[in-house]
């Protein structure tokens, strides 16, 4: 099926922007994706017709705001194939993982083990190291294969009867590798461990069916899913949320407060202390609806075609090497590469002069950079609105950097 990329592009006004007489070739979607009119309109509509605080207000604007906010929760839940009351709005992916590390982490005791990997973003490493300092848990890490995948062959060695949680990246923000979730879940079940996936890079590529994945926690970031920033979501099985103590205290998360003690609201309210990011949540709901309306099979094929174009193009540039899978199997449209003799920041700066936006550096994955003895990589990360013109501009810029900077 043909994917009408031009029609998708028309929904994103920023893609028509001209800077220094050049169009934008936005290939930094892994950091933040752009936002379609449907999301911008939903946020503007809330701000101009329904802006008020949610929950306890009895006036009509408050009722409208509450309805939109809870509607957004239902949109996110539908996108993930789960129940709305299992969705907790957070500030983002990092906030969601920290929530689990603090709250579920309180249920862990000294000597319990959490298993992560060398492929993780710092946001799925540091919160567990901090929990280790607080609670005396042990932290283990799965190694990474030479082609940038989590080495699941090491699972039997690293899962122990003390392993309580396995927290892994669903799609790598550096290599684009897709995790074999089934294998992880099967291994986890043998010792009764829970499984959490960092879905920051997977969620922007179409709806999920979390119950069939068999995981226990899932996190996503709004700004990577074509939504506003400052919003994200945690999904957890309802029985886990019920068992978890609150993370932050304040308004909205309580059942009853006296000066002597407080009882807490049921989930998800228990984990949403204070006034939530209402407009951003409504925007995330609209983004989930927008994503649900796209033909993701065609969009995925389209983006994999772009990945192939990058892989082929880099092959013809001397000293360009991919960090990640060389094939299109079980991967998503994130491509990291190094150019021998040219620092990634210099590649990225050169690309900027061609109107190409990419990210360069360690991508908040320093243990992975250490694993491959790299200072960093240059990363092109794609979205459905990218086209062959974006990739050709990328390759032209990389060739220019190769010819002038070494």
């Amino acid at each position, binding site marked *: 099926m043909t994917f009408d990329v031009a029609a998708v592009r028309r929904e994103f006004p920023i893609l028509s922007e001209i800077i220094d007489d050049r169009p934008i070739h936005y290939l930094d979607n892994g950091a933040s994706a752009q936002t379609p009119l449907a999301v911008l309109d939903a946020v503007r509509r809330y701000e101009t017709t329904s802006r008020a605080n949610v929950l306890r207000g009895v006036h009509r604007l408050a009722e409208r705001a509450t309805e939109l906010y809870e509607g957004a929760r239902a949109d996110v839940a539908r996108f993930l194939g789960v129940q709305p009351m299992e969705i907790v709005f957070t500030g983002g992916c990092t906030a969601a993982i920290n929530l689990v590390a603090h709250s579920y982490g309180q249920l862990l005791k000294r000597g319990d083990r959490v298993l992560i990997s060398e492929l993780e973003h710092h946001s799925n490493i540091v919160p567990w190291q901090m929990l280790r300092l607080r609670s005396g848990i042990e932290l283990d890490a799965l190694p990474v294969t030479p082609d940038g995948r989590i080495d699941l062959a090491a699972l039997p060695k690293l899962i122990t009867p003390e392993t309580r949680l396995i927290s892994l990246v669903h799609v790598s923000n550096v290599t684009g590798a897709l995790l074999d979730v089934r294998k992880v879940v099967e291994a986890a079940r043998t010792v009764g461990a829970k499984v959490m996936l960092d879905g920051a890079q997977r969620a922007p590529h179409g709806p999920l069916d979390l119950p069939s994945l068999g995981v226990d926690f899932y996190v996503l970031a709004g700004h990577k899913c074509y939504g506003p920033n400052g919003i994200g979501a945690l999904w957890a099985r309802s029985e886990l949320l019920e068992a978890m103590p609150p993370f932050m205290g304040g308004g909205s998360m309580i059942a009853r407060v006296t000066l002597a003690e407080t009882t807490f609201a049921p989930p998800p309210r228990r984990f949403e202390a204070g006034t939530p990011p209402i407009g951003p949540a409504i925007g995330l709901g609209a983004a989930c609806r927008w994503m649900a309306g796209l033909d993701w099979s065609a969009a995925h094929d389209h983006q994999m075609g772009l990945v192939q174009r990058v892989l082929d193009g880099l092959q013809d540039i001397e000293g360009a090497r991919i960090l990640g899978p060389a094939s299109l199997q079980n991967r998503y449209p994130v491509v990291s590469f190094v150019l021998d003799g040219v*620092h990634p*920041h*210099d590649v990225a*700066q050169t690309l900027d*002069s061609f109107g190409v936006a990419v990210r360069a550096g*360690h991508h908040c994955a320093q243990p992975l950079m250490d694993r491959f003895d790299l*200072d*960093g990589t240059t990363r092109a990360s794609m979205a459905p609105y990218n086209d062959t013109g974006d990739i050709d501009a990328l390759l032209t810029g990389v060739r220019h950097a190769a010819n002038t900077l070494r």
Partner: protein
Amino acid sequence: MSDELYQARIVTLAKSKTGAGKLSAPTRSARRDNPLCGDRVMIDVKLEGGRIAEIAHQVRGCLLCQASAAALAATAVGRDAAGVAELRHDAERAIGRESGKAHEPFDAFEPVANHKSRHECVLLPFEALEDALS
């Protein structure tokens, strides 16, 4: 535009690799990392009477950082901490953080003035050297 940024003088400075390497018996050493981008500079100095007699640097960083370290190595010998501070003022003038005209070789960094995200690339070698001298 990066073509403006990566002018021949900066590229030549970086490729000169002036002072690149280690000293066999440094008086002081220091390492500075830029946590935002992961660039790293290690500086060795041999001091005589409070002044730099020899200097060497290892840079794991971008072209701007390499060029700055080379320019620093070319100008730091014979200077004490106050003298190095003068060089830093020159670099800061070049990138537009201080007013006035920068002198050679740091005037080569004038194209960096419009790229604020890259200022730290130029200053990181200075910060490592200042640590070594403190």
